[in-house]
């Protein structure tokens, strides 16, 4: 029901919206919850386990009951707190976790059988018969559980992430936050003030109290205006600080576009990472309910929430309202309601000696012990101490006291401390380095104390950061003492809820204690207390008080569970903003990318790079046809392949040779200028890290190449070796991978092709096998290396990357003229397998130089990385060694990933002889060929074994052979 003359809503701006298929009207400035209450809708959700009817409990982000689904289609958003959802024109909200409807929910049956669903019941049954768990019990439980539903498909909404930096982050813009932010701003510090609401003021927007001789909300507006004028203060509304992390880093979620239509480009949410020197926790306090029988009906809400609905939204959540509390703060609700003309049926206070200046029945020393009303509160039962009597009300405002919002102070394992005077926990100072709590977050409950503590904290921080804060002019404010007598469980007949959403009652906690889940962590995990979407904000303190009572311990000894990030839940789309689709990792493109795509080559990922799989030609229907043709080109004519993705590292300096001797197993200091050598690099544990070639470009200048896969790892490794192990060596290591576009030109006609483009022709004298040197390519200074990964007479030619596109097109055109053309990764792979060249399929991280037959390349004349550990007995004895495989029959099929077994007996692990790493159909050999590893394989050449691929049902008789299938003498290389 709306109340005239109250609230901060704009009554001139109506907003139409729908809930559960019905249309309603509210106003700008409403939340979905306030607008529903204004329309006398009390039933907004269903609980998790018993599917109990539920209405709003709170008016904030801690709301456990009023969770709805917003929108429909791909972008539907489940579990939205109606209490936080700003109302906008056309808002569509739907109830969730209820079927067929919110009013009639079939699973309400769970409530009737609740005696059999007590704490942990599922641990004690559903075990028979065994197969029923996955087939019957679990699907039923899964379908009954859960809250709202995801759409199941991707949506078009945009999310965003950003970084911010400041001197002081002020968390919360209630009286404390505003006070602190203004002082810190005036001191000249860079301040970020974040608040989860769209309006600054915090509780001041919900209260009728005065600050500085004016309405509290007006004072807040005045400070907000001051802050708006300070260029060094950044005010972030609709922003929840979600987590405290190491080094003064905080996560924060800004709801940029939840309150209406979003223009193109703008996100729904921005997830901020805020780096700050200091932080002020001014997050206020959260009111807690009291447990009593059936305290969970729609219409029962916290007393502070009732004031918020009345004072901020101009809504009376009932027509006849009772107030029940154990502290003076609850009385304000009665007073505000009465001032607004709403009937207060009674004020029930568990304390014996209270007086409340209201024109209503005040019942001291009394407790509410029961309620009635299936879908909404109709009646409460009051134990006056002289008997139980009913009272007809449609709303009960409950206050069990206020819990300081200590959550962020716990994010780095801090434990809050029990403060008896307010019967709650307060932050441990220093629990998060640089973060100081003030105001009610620190346990100061009266507004005057809140402002004073904020001013004190602000001036300390300013001084700490070398600024002097202006003298605080504390505005006049209420200074009442917050008097409270703890009351956790008011009793009554029936279940009394602690965790509303998860349906955890005081009985569950007591049962847990009885079953020896007496540690607070055990109780939580056994009962699911505090594990709902509010993470126990409403219930943890009361629950552990009940546990303390059940176990005969005090509350401080019982301890707390840990609050962990995030403070309130954060959409994965926000945390992972930008990563959808291709955004997860940068895309690296070679200079030949456009020309390659233009030739319809399917592109495959190689690390972050894209490389062509093959270059299809008209009439070819399978990749194999294209691949066989490309292999033939290289073997018979000439092929061109972009190899720019290989790492290219410039190693320069007087000690370059000595450095390379230390990182490679073999020796490079003796290499002659103009020559290239194959190099093998180990990890310190003696296994192979990478291989490649290294060219001596000048006396003190080497050019190292790495594999594409290991380029980053090798660069990092070289920096490590240089800086951490051998800083004595005068050497500089610079990546030049991106500077050069480099192309393999391979095949018997490779030199002919090059000579058509080089300004000075080459021959076998000027560029012998493993020679290198500068060349002029069509007028451009380039580099030429005579190296081969195909076993053919081949070169790699490099030009500055700006010419890469042009050179690739030219090379391909020339190759085509010579009866060849471009080849892709498939052909490259076939070519190298035919020649027995290894890649990371073979040097997969568990192979040693010994395994791949390069044991002798580990020079014993010098120390190098990995040398010592490579000599461990386990790395050289009884190993699986690199071998080649041929099918015993020409049609035999080989499969990478298949294992090798003896000819007789079962193909079981105990008899495993090895495995296949790389397979190709070799058009040159005319059969499948493969590389792989077999135990003591080098001594078993010619032996017949059994290849078994259980997965694909393939079994082939294979013969072990030398891994070089083509031109074992290497004549073609030197051709």
């Amino acid at each position, binding site marked *: 029901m709306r109340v005239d003359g109250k609230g901060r809503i704009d009554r001139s701006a109506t907003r139409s919206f729908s809930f559960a298929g019905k249309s309603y009207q509210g106003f700008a400035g409403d939340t979905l919850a306030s607008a529903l209450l204004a329309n006398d809708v009390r039933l907004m959700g269903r609980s998790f386990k018993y599917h109990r009817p539920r209405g709003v409990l709170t008016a904030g982000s801690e709301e456990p009951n009023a969770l709805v689904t917003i929108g429909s289609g791909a972008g539907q958003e489940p579990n939205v707190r109606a209490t936080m959802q700003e109302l906008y024109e056309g808002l569509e909200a739907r109830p969730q976790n209820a079927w067929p409807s919110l009013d009639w929910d079939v699973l309400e049956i769970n409530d009737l059988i609740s005696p059999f669903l007590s704490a942990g019941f599922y641990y004690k049954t559903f075990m028979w018969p065994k197969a029923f768990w996955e087939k019957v019990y679990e699907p039923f439980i899964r379908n009954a559980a859960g809250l709202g539903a995801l759409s199941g498909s991707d949506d078009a909404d945009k999310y965003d*992430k950003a970084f911010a930096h400041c001197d002081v982050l002020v968390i919360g813009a209630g009286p404390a936050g505003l006070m602190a932010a203004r002082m810190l701003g005036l001191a000249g510090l860079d301040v970020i003030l974040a608040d989860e609401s769209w309006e600054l003021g915090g509780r001041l927007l919900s209260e009728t109290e005065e600050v500085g001789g004016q309405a509290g909300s007006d004072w807040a507006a005045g400070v907000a205006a001051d802050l708006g004028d300070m260029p060094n203060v950044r005010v972030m509304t609709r922003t929840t600080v979600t987590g405290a992390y190491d080094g003064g880093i905080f996560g924060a979620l800004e709801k940029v576009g939840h309150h209406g239509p979003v223009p193109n480009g703008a996100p729904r949410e921005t997830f901020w990472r805020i780096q700050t020197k200091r932080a002020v926790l001014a997050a206020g306090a959260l009111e807690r309910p009291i447990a009593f029988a059936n305290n969970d009906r729609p219409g029962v809400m916290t007393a502070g929430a009732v004031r918020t609905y009345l004072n901020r939204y101009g809504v009376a959540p009932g027509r006849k309202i009772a107030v029940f509390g154990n502290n003076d703060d609850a009385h304000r609700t009665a007073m505000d309601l009465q001032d607004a003309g709403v009937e207060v049926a009674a004020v029930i206070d568990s304390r014996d000696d209270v007086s409340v200046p209201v024109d209503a029945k005040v019942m001291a020393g009394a407790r509410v012990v029961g309620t009635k009303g299936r879908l909404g509160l109709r009646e409460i039962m009051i134990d006056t101490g002289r008997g139980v009597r009913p009272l007809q009300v449609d709303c009960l405002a409950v206050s069990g006291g206020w819990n300081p919002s200590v959550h962020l102070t716990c994010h780095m394992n801090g434990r809050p401390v029990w403060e008896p005077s307010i019967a709650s926990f307060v932050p441990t100072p220093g629990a998060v380095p640089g973060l100081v709590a003030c105001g009610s977050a620190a346990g100061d409950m009266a507004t005057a104390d809140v402002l004073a503590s904020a001013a004190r904290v602000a001036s300390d921080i300013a001084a700490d950061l070398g600024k002097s804060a202006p003298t605080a002019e504390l505005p006049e404010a209420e200074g009442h003492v917050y008097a409270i007598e703890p009351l956790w469980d008011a009793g009554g007949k029936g279940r009394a809820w602690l965790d509303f959403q998860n349906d955890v009652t005081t009985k569950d906690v007591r049962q847990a204690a009885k079953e020896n889940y007496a540690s607070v962590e055990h109780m939580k995990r056994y009962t699911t207390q505090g594990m709902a979407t509010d993470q126990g904000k409403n219930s943890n303190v009361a629950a552990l008080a009940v546990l303390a009572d059940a176990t005969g311990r005090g509350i401080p000894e019982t301890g707390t569970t840990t609050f962990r990030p995030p403070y309130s839940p954060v959409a994965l789309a926000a945390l992972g903003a930008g990563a959808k689709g291709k955004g997860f990792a940068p895309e690296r493109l070679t200079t030949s990318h456009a020309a390659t795509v233009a030739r319809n080559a399917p592109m495959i990922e190689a690390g972050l790079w894209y490389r062509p799989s093959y270059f299809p030609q008209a009439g070819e229907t399978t990749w194999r046809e294209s691949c066989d043709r490309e292999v033939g080109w290289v073997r018979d004519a000439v092929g061109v392949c972009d190899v720019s993705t290989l790492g290219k590292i410039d190693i320069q300096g007087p000690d370059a040779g000595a450095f390379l001797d230390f990182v490679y197993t073999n020796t490079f200091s003796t290499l002659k200028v103009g020559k290239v050598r194959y190099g093998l690099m180990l990890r310190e544990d003696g296994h192979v890290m990478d291989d490649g070639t290294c060219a001596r470009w000048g006396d003190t200048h080497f050019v190292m190449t790495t594999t594409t896969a290991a380029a980053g790892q090798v660069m990092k490794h070289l920096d490590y070796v240089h800086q951490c192990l051998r800083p004595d060596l005068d050497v500089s290591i*610079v990546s030049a991978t*991106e500077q050069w576009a480099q192309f393999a030109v391979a095949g018997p006609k490779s030199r002919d092709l090059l000579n058509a483009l080089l300004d000075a022709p080459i021959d076998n004298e000027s560029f012998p096998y493993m020679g290198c040197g500068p060349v002029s390519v069509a007028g451009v200074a380039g580099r030429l290396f005579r190296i081969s990964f195909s076993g053919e007479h081949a070169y790699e030619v490099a030009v500055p990357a700006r010419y890469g596109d042009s050179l690739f097109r030219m090379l391909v055109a020339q190759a085509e003229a010579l009866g060849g053309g471009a080849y892709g990764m498939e052909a490259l792979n076939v070519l190298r397998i035919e020649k027995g060249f290894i890649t990371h399929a073979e040097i997969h991280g568990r192979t040693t130089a010994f395994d791949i037959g390069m044991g002798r390349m580990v020079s014993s004349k010098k120390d190098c990385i990995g040398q010592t550990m490579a000599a461990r007995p386990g790395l050289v004895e009884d190993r699986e060694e690199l071998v080649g495989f041929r099918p015993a029959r020409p049609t035999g099929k080989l499969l990478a990933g298949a294992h090798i077994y003896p000819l007789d007996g079962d193909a079981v692990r105990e008899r495993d002889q090895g495995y296949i790493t790389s397979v190709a159909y070799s058009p040159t050999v005319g059969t499948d060929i493969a590389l792989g590893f077999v135990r003591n394989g080098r001594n078993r050449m010619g032996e017949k074994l059994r290849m078994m691929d259980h997965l694909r049902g393939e079994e082939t008789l294979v013969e072990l052979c030398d891994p070089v299938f083509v031109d074992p003498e290497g004549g073609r290389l030197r051709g």
Partner: protein
Amino acid sequence: MVKLIAKSAAEGLLPVEVAGVRVEEIVAPLASLSPFQGQDAALGKALKKAHGVVLPKAGQITQAGEVSCHWFGLNHVMLMGAAPDASLAKVAAVTDQSDAWCRVRMTGEAARDVLARLTPIDLRDAALPVGATARTDIQHMSGALTRVGEDVWEVMVFRSVARTLVHDLTTSLETVAGIAEMRSA
């Protein structure tokens, strides 16, 4: 006679302009210089003599006309705008990097908000004043960020990721513009 045609790293991708922020590519010679042990001062001298620029301190850039020198990492500076003089190679490892990087300039009041979406470093005036440079992470890419004017920033990433950079910048530009439109509504 055949002739190779040069293409810049972001050719066909830039310039882009969204809501008053302009992004354009800069093409100029780049050479990384890494002084040999104990040769820092000698490199400084040679640089001054050959190119007129001072060897920059960590996080700084120096400039002389068209030529500038950017600090570029541990033991490492980048000469920009001129081919390195041969004298430099006597005291430093010199590596041509003219084609290795995609270098863009972003101009506009909102440029800082755009960058705040891509890099974790502090972009406030005190931390990154005009003339300061930083090696940092640009949306999972290894990059360099330089403030060359009040609202003028240079971003460098490897050439191969030019398209990703332009995509990321454009997305962030649109985000910032969208948010501004929302706030002004």
